[in-house]
């Protein structure tokens, strides 16, 4: 194993192959929990006024009276054929809902990653540079506050307290349902593609609060990691050399030291994908953002099993892929890493 392009391809291929058993496992676990633990979902799906006959008809219709292994097998064969099922109450296809909701969540997560990077990393540098002094204590208090604030509390305060004060929108992705086509389902991108610039502004305004809520929670991860690795790097000889050469403090910190410290920060950012996705469940629910998190919540609380499994599959794929991406970035940034 080495460091050339073909090694990288083999490495990526291997990891993608490993994705298959992970997704299978995730499906099995979720299927088991939903189908075994919920005794009679038909009583919920058919509504509160359903008669016993209607409930029985529902059981037959969704195959819930068949043995569990049969149900699992037919679900898996459908899944393999590209049919992810549908919402039992509304008959809307799971795959259609996900393909509209997923880009919206991606947009939210990317926006919050930008906020995390732009604010979180410089804070970490400042803290490490003044380690043990008041700047360090201040930054540590700030990021630990973000860490200690439950997502829902931050989101509630931003949505009900801060939003109205600043006049920022707190619901949905546009003020009124857009009339232009939505090819990507990312609000800002769609508005840009339609060359509708007032809508672009509207979309960005709608993005600010939910993205900040998501970023605030995870700001600490970027800051803490940057601080820790900067603490290790600042006493090293090459930093002293840079200082002795008479370079400005800014260049020493942000060009020479930070470049080396960022390796671990970037790695940890990839691993936070799971945390961010968990965060979207609460944040999208509070801000009524039309993404995967809101859909996950609806599917879970509505006993929409196929929807739940669909969301979980997508989340698992994203988590595994973002771990892979962070590994690749790690390898590209650190010349000592070999693809294995």
């Amino acid at each position, binding site marked *: 194993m080495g460091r050339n392009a073909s090694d990288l391809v083999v490495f990526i291929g291997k990891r993608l192959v*490993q994705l298959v*058993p*992970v*997704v299978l*496992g*995730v499906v099995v*676990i*979720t299927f088991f*929990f*939903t189908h*075994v*633990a*919920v005794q009679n979902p038909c009583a919920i799906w058919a509504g509160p006024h359903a008669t016993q006959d209607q409930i029985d008809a529902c059981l037959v219709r969704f195959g819930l009276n068949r043995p569990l292994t049969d149900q699992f097998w037919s679900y898996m064969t459908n899944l393999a054929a590209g049919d992810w099922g549908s919402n039992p109450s509304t008959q809307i296809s799971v795959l259609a809902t996900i393909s509209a909701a997923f880009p919206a969540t991606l947009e939210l997560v990317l926006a919050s990653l930008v906020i995390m990077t732009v604010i979180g990393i410089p804070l970490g540098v400042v803290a*490490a540079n*003044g*380690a*043990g*002094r008041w700047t360090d*204590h201040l930054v*540590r*208090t700030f990021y*630990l*506050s973000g*860490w*200690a*604030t*439950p*997502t*829902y*509390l931050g989101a*509630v*305060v931003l949505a*009900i*307290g801060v939003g*109205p004060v600043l006049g920022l929108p707190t619901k949905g992705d546009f003020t009124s349902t857009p009339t232009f086509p939505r090819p990507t389902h990312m609000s800002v991108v769609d508005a840009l593609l339609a060359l509708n610039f007032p809508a672009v502004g509207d979309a960005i305004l709608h993005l600010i609060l939910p993205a900040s809520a998501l970023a605030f929670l995870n700001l600490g991860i970027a800051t*803490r990691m940057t601080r*820790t690795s900067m*603490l*290790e790097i*600042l*006493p090293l000889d090459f930093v002293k050399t840079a200082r002795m050469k008479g370079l400005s403090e800014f260049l020493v910190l942000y060009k020479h030291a930070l470049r080396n410290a960022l390796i671990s920060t970037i790695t940890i950012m990839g691993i936070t994908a*799971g*945390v961010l*996705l*968990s965060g979207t*469940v*609460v944040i999208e*629910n509070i801000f009524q953002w039309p993404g995967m998190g809101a859909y*996950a*919540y609806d599917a*879970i*609380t509505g*006993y929409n099993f196929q929807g*739940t499994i669909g*969301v*979980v599959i997508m*989340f*698992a794929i994203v*988590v*595994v892929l973002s771990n892979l991406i962070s590994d690749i970035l790690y390898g590209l940034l650190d010349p000592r890493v070999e693809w294995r």
Partner: protein
Amino acid sequence: MTETAPQTRNSSSRAEATLVSKAEASVLRDFLRGLLRVLRANPLTFVGFILVLILSVLALLVVLVPVVTQLLLGHTILLTPFDPNELTTDYGQPPSTSHFFGTDNLGGDIFSRILTALPLDLAIGFGITGFALLVGGGLGLVAGFWDRPGTIGGVVSLVILRVTDVFLAFPSLVLALAIAASLGRGTGPAMLAVLVTWWPYYVRLTRGEVLAVKHQPYVMAARAAGVSEVRILFRHVLRNLLEPLLVYYTLDIGTVLVTFSTISFVGIGVPLSVPEWGSMVELYRRFLQTQPWTVLSAGGAIFVTVLAFSLFGDGLRDILDPRSRRALVQAAIPSTLMAKAAAAAEA
């Protein structure tokens, strides 16, 4: 030869035992000394330490006072000023001397409700994290220590790792919500949901640490001296994992608490009749503008608790990790002193 062998082994293990107990004492002394030094040098860690202590004692008192007074006096005395489920006639009062954190729209005393929830939330934090540490840590030890391919241990460790990978691919909150929703609303199901999702992190962490430690020369030396594998695992390997695991455990208590209260917040955890901080935030969120003390007290309780454990755990890492300890000490020395020292060295 066969007769002397057990003797030598006995004496060597006795020598080892005294060595270990000496090392144990010095490790403990070093740790306490380091703790004191850092607590003094690092005010934030000190604050965290004190807060954790106060919260734990308070939680114990909230549980014990009613039980003890019932036993001694024959009637229960609550530590809280009001019964948490009692509805007073003061509706929606702001904080005052009679209601420290104010009252909600139905007249419930917020301070009493928050204090009553403290033992539940703390116990969940400690308990679930402890369970995850034991189960995940145990599996991680096995998976890291006996991982030679082709042996039974190798197969077992491969199975453990694959199952862990599957669980790690779930965003934990989503799986926990799915489990909690399937099992129906209640404190038990919500706890079980977090329990099921929490252990995999510890497998990863422990295994990584075991892999880093087990090829160290002192482990090889112990093996060469004929120390049994199980003994090596517990005496030599596990000992060196305690520090990172302790740090992670401390930091994680807050995270578990947040996850548990999130399940309550979205309405599928603790029933509303049981005071719990997350469900209180959910219950009061529509009053954020009109009666902000309701939401902010409940949210503040979680915030302070999680912050306490984070500050303490974060500081603990600085104490226990030699690399960041050295950097911290170096950074704490004022640069003028360094310059003086450099000048002295030159002269």
